[in-house]
């Protein structure tokens, strides 16, 4: 009977009492199916209870356990240690304020999604004509039963961490731009022209440099990179005729 192999985890540590970040080393047993999250929780249980880790569903659908493993953005609960080498570096998502160790404040994700109108939840046709109109009417708060999730995005923030540009807080970023493209593909009562105007900005769709890192790391198949390029195509199709004519854009009444 062979003893299980062990893996060395170099874990980013940064708490409210620390002057500076550091990397703590932990040796953990790892079987063929041990995930990064398994290892982190084992560290928390048996070696260092002060390690801060956040998770929820444990099967890659909630987006809570996003972090960087050997520099690459992954969901820790579905990332196996097997194949990552004997020493694995575990860090929090990039470009986010660290609440403690591997836990980050996800505000930078939500505040970008907000101006796009949170299209990830939109009026359901099943809610009936009144429900749909109530959700689209200005100044109202839609009732939860009237809304359904139509999108793949799980708001995990991996794309924003991976994006070479999203360190700039002004950039709308892959998640919000992909959400905007979904609104334009399927408006369901949302004002498409306003969303188009929102993304037609130096820090909107035009800030992307087509690295497609976001699409490479997205665990939910959103393909934000592709969505941003489709957004640009819409903008060009809309703006280009005006470029040769007048500069003034009409705002629909």
């Amino acid at each position, binding site marked *: 009977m062979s003893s299980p192999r062990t893996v060395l985890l170099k874990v980013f540590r940064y708490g409210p009492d620390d002057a500076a970040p550091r990397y703590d080393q932990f040796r953990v047993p790892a079987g063929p199916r041990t995930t990064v999250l398994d290892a982190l929780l084992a560290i928390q249980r048996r070696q260092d209870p002060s390690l801060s880790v956040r998770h929820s569903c444990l099967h890659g659908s909630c987006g809570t356990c996003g972090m960087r493993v050997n520099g690459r953005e992954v969901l820790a609960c579905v990332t196996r240690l097997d194949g990552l080498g004997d020493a694995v570096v575990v860090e929090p998502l990039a470009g986010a304020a660290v609440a403690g160790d591997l836990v980050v404040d996800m505000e930078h994700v939500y505040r970008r999604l*907000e*101006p796009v*109108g*949170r299209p990830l*939840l939109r009026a359901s046709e099943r809610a009936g004509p009144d429900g749909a109109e109530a*959700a689209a009417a*200005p*100044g109202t*708060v*839609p009732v*939860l039963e009237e809304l359904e999730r139509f999108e793949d995005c799980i708001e995990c923030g991996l794309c924003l961490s991976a994006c*070479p*540009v999203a*360190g*700039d807080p*002004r950039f709308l970023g892959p998640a919000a731009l992909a959400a905007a493209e979904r609104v334009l593909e399927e408006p369901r009562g949302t*004002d498409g*022209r*306003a*969303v*188009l*105007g*929102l993304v*037609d*900005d*130096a820090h*909107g769709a*035009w800030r992307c*440099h087509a690295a497609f890192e976001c699409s490479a790391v997205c665990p939910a198949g959103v393909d934000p990179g592709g969505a941003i390029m489709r957004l*640009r195509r819409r*903008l*060009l199709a809309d*703006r*280009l005729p*005006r*470029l040769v004519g007048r*500069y*003034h*854009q009409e*705002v629909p009444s």
Partner: protein
Amino acid sequence: MATRTEEDFTEATRRRRRPRPTFAWVAQVVSGVLLLVLLTAHMVAQHFVVEGGLRTYDQVIAWIRNPVVFAVEALLLVCVTWHGIAGVHAVLLDLGLRGRAERIVARVLLDLAVATILYGLWLLYMLAFRG
């Protein structure tokens, strides 16, 4: 969970009237495509036609006096300066410039582009007409 109202969206659209970022992209694409053609022509004509690959002084002067050559070189200069400086601007923007620093850098780059084009045109003129 409140959704943004239509008034908020309209306000955001009003603030973004002019399609300047779209124009910047189109300019970069157009200049880039032009450069693919012009630079290829430039490289071939300058270095792969003449014996030895490099023109002597007399050959350069004779070459630049050709009005077609002069025009192409001038267009190449404008395109490459625009495309290059715009590219540098994008790189600097990704360093996190904002506010006053961003405006200063944009202004400096614009001045640099204009100065480069003026210098290049002057050089072309001196060689073609005073060489």
